[in-house]
């Protein structure tokens, strides 16, 4: 095989690898990205559009990304930037999270009906409480507790110091505790 033909074969393999790595990356992250975008945009249709836009950005810039370690944070940063860009373009529209959740939250697939109801109650309470958090606190909770990003990865996504991430998380948890306590008191009173 000539040098150029061999190079062509190498190049073709590399492109195939690149495509394959994009496909596996998309498969790995699309559901998480969609979930995150759904939570922050509160709009399922928009979240689907933004997920597609996010992966188009990823597709274009994937060859520039170096290092598996930063990959997850980078993917979520791209998703967040897509959302922020959309917000700047369209102006912020807030939709009740309930509209986004639809029937999904009523997914009662637990062992027994009583436990299901308790879990569903807790789920609703937590969801309601998280939805009431200011955006900058909510983001930290969503990225950490829902998407499993470490604090160091959240630093990369939000581009803020680690101390700020920690303090936002602490404040978010503190607010959640109060909100859940209020919810509990309200339920007890009924």
């Amino acid at each position: 095989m000539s040098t150029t033909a061999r190079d062509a074969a190498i190049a073709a393999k590399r492109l195939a690898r690149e495509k394959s790595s994009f496909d596996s990356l998309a498969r790995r992250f699309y559901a998480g990205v969609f979930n995150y975008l759904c939570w922050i945009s509160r709009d399922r249709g928009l979240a689907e559009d933004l997920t597609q836009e996010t992966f188009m950005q990823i597709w274009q810039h994937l060859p520039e990304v170096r290092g598996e370690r930063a990959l997850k944070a980078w993917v979520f940063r791209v998703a967040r930037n897509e959302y922020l860009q959309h917000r700047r373009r369209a102006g912020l529209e807030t939709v009740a999270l309930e509209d986004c959740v639809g029937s999904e939250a009523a997914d009662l697939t637990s062992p027994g009906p009583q436990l299901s109801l308790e879990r569903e109650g807790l789920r609703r309470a937590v969801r309601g409480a998280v939805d009431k958090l200011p955006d900058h606190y909510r983001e930290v909770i969503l990225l950490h507790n829902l998407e499993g990003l470490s604090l160091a990865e959240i630093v990369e996504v939000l581009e803020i110091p680690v101390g700020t991430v920690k303090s936002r998380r602490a404040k978010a948890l503190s607010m959640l505790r109060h909100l859940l306590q209020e919810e509990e008191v309200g339920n007890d009173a009924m």
Partner: protein
Amino acid sequence: MRCDEARENLHGDAGRLGHARLGLHLLRCRACRAGAREIRALDSALSALPRFTPSAELLPAVLAQAQARRQTTETQKETRTMKRLAYAVAFLIIAGLLAGGLLTKARPPDGRALLISAAEAMEEAKTIHVVFRGTEAAPDSPTGFRMMPGRGEMWLSDRTVALRYVDSAGELLLASYLDCDTALWWVYDRSKQSLYEANLGAVRERLPQIVAKVSRRFRGEQLVEMMTTEYPDAQESVSTERHEGRLVRVVTFVYTHSKQPRHITARRVFEVDPETARLITARRYAKVEGAPEELIDSLDKVEYDVPMPPGLAEPRCPNDTQTIETSVTLEETSDTVSLVMQHNGVELGRMDTAKAD
């Protein structure tokens, strides 16, 4: 560990040592233990947050869109890339010009064999000097193709990679020079009125290998890589014509960008010296049905084994240019070695080479 430190570390990422110290503190401090329990309880409650499941169509749509984009990025990528990296301007034009020929799959063997030989001749030359240009699309251009208008020159050897690109008025837009003998890399960017200089002394030992690979990538591998976009319906033709008093082989590929918003027919024309198998010129055209064909870019001249011109290392920038010292790092992955020029955390240039031969 004090209580305030402990409270901070309760939120994770304390590191192994921090975690151990936190554990010790929690054994002794009832208040912090209560805080830790509370955080665990909240984390547990948060695990009950519902997840939104995307529709079954989303993933196929993402993958299909990427696949469609793959087939159109070749031209679109040009405009984006040239803003980021000086070398890319030269590379994309040259690669784009050569692209249709070498890797178009549905083709008779003649044209392909001719162009593979041409690429080999470029690789084997000790030095290569190319002159190329991007054309300015008319404001009402129906194809939507846009290249950076202007002219460029590139000199490539195993020791040096140099580029100069001027606009239609002759003003320097981009220039770059990477040389392993002087261990110097500079990039001039008119949009920033800046000349970025980096001393490569720290990576001097690796330079000969890296520069040779970078240079060969421009001449061979990466050109070919750019050409791996498949145009299954490409029609190939080979003819012999007279060019400036001598006979040349003309290889033409015609294919369509069916994924573009509009149906675009692209044509790539290569002139090859039949005796030496060397590429003489290459041109790329695009046409929308019913509109005149447009020249997108052109490789006007390729010179082989010419001496590198004196003064190539001199930036010759406009007077209002500020010179900025930058740093260069060597980044390695399992597949690649890259020289990366950065200033204030912004990447100014990148030279990627594959580790594999």
